[in-house]
């Protein structure tokens, strides 16, 4: 246990160790690639360098986490609790995975601009800030740093019109969402005179929410709704997910989503714990709409990437179900589910990325036909991923869903869990055909899968993810405990101020 006084420069520096290390390293990468940005060799160098940066930042994070760093007094600007550390770990995992997936992908698609990796690191730094923000201003800054980098990444395949479309769409909608968020922050600040989440919570405690703060809360929810792609704010996500380069899609589905959910949970639980009557129905409505729309529309998709985009909307719905109780168990469930979903999704997009052959746009179910015969391990891995996304026992995805169910059922709520499982059944309708195509349909030609190559880096990332999905599916005890403990830290720091 170390206690950090966040009002001193040293204290805040230590508290921000992972963020500072990562930002610093992003600048180094930017510097290196400014004179080495020509060949595939350079791109690879930047990639491995970035990976090293993620590891260094991870070491910083581990230092804080293992020593149980906590604030001495009020957490100003940045949180120091298990929830932040857990979320940061998910973000860093997602970043590392994205980098590994990108190594081979960029070469194959001839996207040899190594600035890509610097952008990934900058986006990750933004995510870390977002996940750890204890202050609405920090939250907004983190969100913007992340978003701007990801806008560029989405359009990184400049010659591809769909990629450009994705970037433009993402940018316009994202800017719009930021506007909502900022307006919400302004209104909340106007009511309470502070931007610190715990202090807002203390200010608002014990009295009905003033209208202005309620409006602010609504605008914040809309802003977050856009960022996590919850229905009805999801319109952009299928096109963006589909058009962006596949590793970037993986990054958006895992990292961006995790960071946005972290900020959402923290904001709701720390700043508006007493306003559950107001936000719980909204969250429930968004959850139900996301689960239903995401899963139903995914059924109708031909392109796998688009299907996963809609399924990702469905998963945002499941996560919102976990947010709904506004409890520490719910926060733990969000954490665990994001980890499970993140690992699985990374591996899934890794597989998808290796299926597309240079410049070809859509990977459809037919492209998977008979894959099990020619690529048995590939097929097995993708099967595990599909089952995990489906929430099937024996995989980490099941543990995640089960935790969400427990957290919600413990509050005596039954409608959300029942809808969650029913929409999960619907999702079997599009996850199973993937397995079916690989195992139960013949390959169109003997050579049809010869182009499927998994570069070493991607293969390693995928293999580790799949192994983790299975391992934690069978031995979830420690992960559950960790997520539970991390969730519990969330409002502890705010407690002393929460009184009337």
């Amino acid at each position, binding site marked *: 246990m170390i206690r950090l006084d966040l009002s001193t420069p040293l204290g805040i520096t230590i508290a921000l160790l992972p963020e500072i290390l990562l930002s610093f390293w992003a600048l180094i990468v930017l510097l290196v690639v400014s004179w080495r940005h020509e060949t595939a060799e350079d791109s690879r160098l930047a990639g491995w360098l970035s990976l090293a940066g993620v590891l260094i930042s991870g070491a910083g994070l581990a230092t804080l986490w293992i020593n149980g760093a906590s604030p001495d007094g009020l957490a100003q600007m940045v949180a120091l609790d298990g929830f932040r550390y857990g979320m940061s770990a998910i973000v860093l995992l997602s970043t590392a995975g994205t980098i590994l997936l990108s190594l081979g992908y960029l070469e194959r698609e001839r996207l040899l601009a190594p600035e890509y990796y610097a952008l990934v690191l900058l986006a990750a730094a933004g995510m870390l800030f977002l996940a750890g923000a204890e202050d609405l201003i920090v939250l907004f800054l983190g969100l913007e740093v992340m978003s701007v980098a990801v806008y560029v990444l989405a359009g990184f395949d400049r010659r591809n019109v769909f990629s450009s479309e994705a970037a433009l769409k993402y940018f316009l909608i994202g800017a719009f969402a930021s506007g909502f968020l900022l307006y919400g922050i302004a209104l909340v600040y106007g009511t309470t005179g502070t931007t610190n989440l715990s202090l807002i919570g203390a200010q608002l405690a014990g009295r009905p929410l003033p209208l202005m703060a309620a409006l602010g809360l609504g605008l914040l929810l809309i802003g977050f709704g856009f960022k996590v792609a919850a229905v009805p704010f999801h319109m952009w996500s299928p096109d963006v997910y589909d058009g962006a380069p596949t590793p970037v899609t993986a990054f958006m589905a895992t990292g961006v989503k995790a960071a946005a959910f972290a900020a959402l949970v923290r904001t709701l639980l720390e700043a508006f714990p007493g306003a559950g009557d107001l936000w719980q129905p909204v969250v429930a409505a968004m959850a139900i709409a996301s689960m239903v729309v995401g899963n139903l529309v995914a059924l109708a998709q031909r392109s796998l990437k688009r299907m996963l985009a809609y399924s990702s909307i469905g998963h945002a719905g499941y996560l919102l179900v976990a947010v709904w109780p506004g409890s520490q168990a719910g926060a733990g469930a969000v954490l665990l589910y994001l980890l499970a979903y993140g690992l699985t999704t990374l591996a899934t997009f890794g597989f998808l990325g290796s299926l597309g052959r240079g410049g070809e746009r859509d990977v459809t179910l037919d492209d998977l036909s008979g894959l099990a015969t020619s690529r048995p391990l590939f097929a097995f891995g993708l099967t595990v991923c599909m089952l995990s996304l489906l929430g099937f026992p024996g995989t980490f995805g099941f543990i995640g869903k*089960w935790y969400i169910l427990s957290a919600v*059922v413990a509050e005596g709520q039954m409608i959300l*869990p029942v809808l969650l*499982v029913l929409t999960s059944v619907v999702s*079997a309708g599009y996850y*199973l055909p993937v397995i079916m195509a690989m195992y*139960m*349909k013949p390959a169109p030609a003997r050579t049809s899968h010869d182009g499927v190559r998994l570069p070493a880096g991607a293969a390693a990332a995928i293999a580790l993810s799949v192994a983790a999905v299975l391992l934690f599916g069978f031995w979830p005890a420690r992960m*559950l*405990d960790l997520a539970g403990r991390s969730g519990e830290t969330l409002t502890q720091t705010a407690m002393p101020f929460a009184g009337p």
Partner: protein
Amino acid sequence: MTQFLDSIGYGQWILHALILLPLLGVVPVLLGPESAAKRTALAVTILEFVISAGLWWELDPSRGAFQLLSNTPWIPNWGISYRVGIDGISLFMVLLTTALMPLSVLGSWNYITRQERGFYALMLALLTGLVGVFIALDMFVFYIFFEVMLIPMYFIIGIWGGANRLYAAIKFFIYTMAGSLLMLVAIVAMVWQIQAVTGYLSFSYDHLLQNAGALGGSAPWLFAAFAIAFAIKVPIFPFHTWLPDAHVEAPTAGSVLLAGVMLKIGTYGFLRFAIPFFPQVALSPEVSRLMVILAVIGIIYGALVAMVQPDIKKLVAYSSVSHLGFVMLGIWGGTLQSVQGSLVVMISHGISTGALFLLIGMLYERRHTRLIADYGGIARVVPLFSLVLTVVALSSIGLPGLNGFVGEFLVLLGSFAAYPWATGVATTGVIFAAAYLLWALQRMIFNRLDNPENERLADLTRREVAVMLPLLVGIVWLGLYPAPVLRRMEAATERYLEVVRPHLTTPVNRVRLGATPEVGP
């Protein structure tokens, strides 16, 4: 025998070994050469059966409680443990599973011609799942086995099935999953509600059973979730529509295990979980009436639809709906006879229907058609096959002296007092069963031999005789001398009835019924 079993510490390891052995068997099957896969699988399944057979002696028939209990913490902070145990009810489910498995493997010998390693590995994985379902005493563990079992069966249907296999596989999967996920919500809700009352978070079956009375107003909903999950699995009319597709499209081994074992998970689930947890709901007059009506509809409807099937496999599939209706009727009959009768129907249906599917598979291997109209008069060409088919069909019909009779007779006898009308109607199901099976027999093996393609059919080979012989022994033994089986179930059934008896509404059940009736000579 018991001394020998004690000397090797049988009771300590047997349940774990039953779960682990098939899983370990998957490794040599997958890594070995393609041609050796079936032999390895056969060896593993026979070994599994041999070690499971010791349970027959190991279990103390006078005790109704769970035996050979073991408890290893798995997710301690959530009250989840790997808890296993066995009683007189699950004993026979386990033995049925381990006995049918080697026969299914042997029955697939020539039927499965491609990707053999995958097939036999999945069969072994399925064996683990099936055994696990019957011995799990932790709701979380039970749920996992209940679900995980779907995967091997899904692949077995989807890869090695008939022409319409993809549709059948996904329908089977989604139906079962829909029910079981609702059950998952119910399990979680139940655990949390009981935790709120007792302050103790545990998924243990015994803990939940003892405190289920505290559930109060939510019990009807929880029961509904459990009941739908198991009703789909049984399947009870109107949840049966996945069954004909899955049974017909599955390869022989898949059909045998589906009908022989997997359907019983539904009825077992009612007996073990749904009813004992919520007896006040399950045995309330309204629910009882509904379930008995559905059971009788299943009996009659299954039989009538079976009668008009042109495809012999589909005929047998629908006959399962009918037979399982008897099981449901017996469970709600609520007397010692009727419940024991249900258990015996579960066993004998597993044997008879398994045997029928195996025989149909043998015929299909020869002629590649299952249409009844394509056969006729083959008794002259394949006398041995026809003899076996006739015996098995008669046992399925319920001819006295063969296994089918014992169970159905006990069910009808035991249920009559509580539901005279329903039982009366159900009795006609036995007549219909004779009608559809005998009529099919007549069209297939008797009549005139008018199709020249049937003239050169080969009779049963030695391997096929080896497959059928154990089943025939079971058919005759259970028909003539079921007493040892009934004796072993009695204490556990009695214990089940003690839990539910206070909630039974029909007058006759208040009377303590006598010991097991003697059936057969």
